[in-house]
């Protein structure tokens, strides 16, 4: 067991590897909570419901016309594509999450004294395949 540095993370969207344009990414796994508290309880009692989740990523904009973040993500806003995220980087047996996601937002930010950046928000659609990498 050891700590893992974030720079090894792999982030792919719609089968396009955006890792080299990405500075941070996040995958949030959540679930609905149903309150099933009845009379006679001293505390709320909950039952798990449908799974849910969201993901996001952001990074440094690149003008690459075929594989840059704008070229890949902008045309796909509002569509469902495959997200692949390898939290410990690529390698046999290492974990990965593969899930369908709805691209809900793509943002480009242009500060006057810094690099142009991009960001994407993703709504998970369906269950996550967390099978480790082959």
């Amino acid at each position, binding site marked *: 067991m050891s700590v893992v540095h*974030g*720079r*090894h*993370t*792999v*982030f792919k969207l719609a089968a396009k*590897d955006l*890792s*080299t*344009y*990405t*500075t941070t*990414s996040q995958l949030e796994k959540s679930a609905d909570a149903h309150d099933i508290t009845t009379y006679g309880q001293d505390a709320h009692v909950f039952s798990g419901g449908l799974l849910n989740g969201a993901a996001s990523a952001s*990074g*440094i904009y*690149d003008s690459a016309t075929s594989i840059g973040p704008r070229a890949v993500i902008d045309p796909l806003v509002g569509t469902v594509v495959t997200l692949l995220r390898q939290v410990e980087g690529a390698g046999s047996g290492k974990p990965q999450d593969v899930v369908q996601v709805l691209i809900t937002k793509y943002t480009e930010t242009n500060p006057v*004294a810094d*690099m142009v950046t991009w960001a994407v928000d993703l709504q998970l659609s369906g269950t996550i395949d967390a099978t480790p990498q082959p």
Partner: protein
Amino acid sequence: MELDEVMEAVADRLGQIDRIAGRVFAYPPLKVEAPAGIVSYPDAIEFDATYGRGVDMMRGLEVTIVEGKISDRDARDRMAPYVAGSGTGSVKAVLEAASVAPMPWDDLHVLSVAFDVVTIAGTDYLAATFKIDLAGPGTVS
């Protein structure tokens, strides 16, 4: 983004300024005669600005222009085009100009210029030192 390639390419571009053409050093020289341009080392190279060795940052690369004697009014007038924001003699404009040929960096930004006095062979010369940030590929192509 390799340090030597960056310093050489910056020096080549600096040499496009007529007054210092052929008088630009791509490294800190032992001796220099004004007018001259000197490309010196950056403050730092920051690795892994993105995942997967995508982008490295080179911070505070220094370019120094040495002109006439500090007490010479003409030196001020000759220094003015170097430190202007635009024009064919502007260090910022020349270094940031778009290039058809591939450069070792993806982006070059001349951030600032500061003035100083450098003493060469007992004479005080007016010097202007530019600070430059660069972003480029983390993997060497």
